[in-house]
């Protein structure tokens, strides 16, 4: 049990009357990359957003079941959602840096958490930018606006911003889908390095990306979890026919 970071038990999600997630049960291993794949509308992004309770922002959403992170149900009434989001960070599909300087973007999280001294902030900013493999490119222009960076750089900046609050888990919602191949491979390489310290869950509609980057893969279809297993097994000998059909491109 020590190797499991997140345990999901019969999680269901309703948009009003429509059931978008149907009794999802799975385990996310710690310090590994787990990929969520499936055709459009299968619920993988919705499920991802359940993990850091971003679906709370949508009106009319009802969630049943349990999502245990390190043994604590994050949907329990006594849990403060703000604390959850400090431990579970998210990188979005389209990079969304604040219209502030590069430094201020990365320092945003720590400042919110009460860190005020310049030295501490400087250190956190540098560490985070290094971890996101973008320090060398921006170290001389930390005061410049983040909006002047290229798409790939902005996305790495968003990753640095997420790392700056020292989360345990990083959720990535199709982080490279808007990027060119070179930037994409940089992000993939980054994911590979980050998994030593963080547990990473990545949603991608690009199966090859899931195959390249992840240790475990979960296949979703029409709101249900069809199969989850080691990526090597899923892509060489999947157990469910639906999984095989999707991976070989027979449908979806």
């Amino acid at each position, binding site marked *: 049990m020590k190797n499991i970071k997140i345990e999901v038990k019969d999680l269901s999600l309703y948009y009003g009357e429509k059931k978008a997630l149907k009794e999802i049960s799975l385990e996310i291993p710690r310090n590994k990359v787990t990929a969520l794949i499936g055709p459009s509308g299968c619920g993988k992004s919705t499920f991802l957003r359940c993990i850091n309770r*971003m679906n709370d922002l949508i*009106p009319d959403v009802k969630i049943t079941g349990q999502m245990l992170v390190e043994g604590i149900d994050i949907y329990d009434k006594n849990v403060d959602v703000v604390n959850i989001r400090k431990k579970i960070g998210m990188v979005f599909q389209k990079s*969304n840096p604040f219209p502030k300087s590069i430094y201020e973007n990365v320092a*945003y*999280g720590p400042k*919110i958490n009460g860190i005020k001294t310049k030295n501490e902030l400087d250190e956190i900013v540098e560490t985070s930018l290094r971890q996101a493999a973008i320090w060398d490119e921006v170290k001389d222009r930390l005061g410049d606006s983040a909006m002047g960076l290229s798409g790939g750089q902005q996305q790495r900046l968003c990753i640095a911003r997420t790392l700056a609050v020292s989360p345990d888990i990083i959720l990535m919602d199709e982080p490279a889908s808007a990027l060119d191949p070179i930037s994409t491979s940089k992000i993939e390489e980054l994911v590979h390095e980050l998994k030593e310290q963080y547990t990473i869950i990545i949603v991608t509609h690009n199966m090859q990306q899931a195959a390249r980057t992840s240790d475990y893969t979960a296949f979703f279809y029409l709101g249900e979890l069809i199969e989850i297993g080691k990526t090597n097994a899923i892509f060489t000998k999947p157990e469910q026919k639906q999984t095989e059909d999707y991976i070989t491109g027979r449908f979806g």
Partner: protein
Amino acid sequence: MEATIIETKTNFFSNKKKGVDIKGKLVVGITQVAVLLIIAILFVILGIIVYEGRAKFSWEFISSFPTNGMTEGGIFPALIGTFILVVVMSIAAVPFGTITAIYLTEYAKENSKIAAAIRFSVRTLAVVPSIIFGLFGLGFFIQFMGTGMDKAFNGGELHWGQPNILWASLTMSLLTLPVIIVSVEEALKTIPRELREASLALGATKWQTIKNVVFPGSISGIMTGTILAVSRGAGEVAPILFTGAAYYLATLPKSLSDQFMNLGYHIYIMSTQSSDVEKTMPIQFATTLVLLILTLSLNLVAVIIRSRIRRKAK
């Protein structure tokens, strides 16, 4: 016998002959005429004002008091009065309007009845004739609040229960409130949802998100709204007719309970109640010119600031 082959050149794109698009040209032509007409009218009006007012328009005019039964001299007190008016008006309207706009965009739920009521009120306020504001100011601020304050603090002695710059500014602020609310709301709406999500995903509370992400993004809207409000407040006369404006004061207002002179009101008085209308014509035109310059330059500043902020955000 060899058959002659006639080669018909078929156009790859279409078989239509290249003709003249009459309808299109007509529309363009009418639009151009309309634009020219508007520009012409504008130039004529401006031309007349500048021509008639240039004689009196000088630094002395702006900085000296009116003399000789207001047939000579300058408009300094009117300028100062207008200035104090818009400052107090802004202090009242801008924070109130900003907070309302933030509530409407950030806190109110989709189908909240309160939000709907607020929006309806704002829209209605925007179309109310400005004289009604003046009547409201008289009835509510002066006769109700003013006399109420006098009863409570001055033992019934008349101090607040009469027209002064405070009541006039508050009345004007009601007039310009819709402008501010709409401008700020528009600016807030341009902030993409993803930025709020990004902040929340980092573990910020809703209030922290508003303070650090939403509010800075709304500053351009606040500035635009304020300057539009100010330029409107500088020119409107009806709301201050019986809430505080006076046609002649020997001194500048010293406190909020004093009356004040006002540029717009000054023009009105000059053209209807002056002792010698002919003589004061140049003063009227010059005052109009000053007011115009003031309003136009304020609008220009609003545009510049807004475009600067937009460029910085890129």
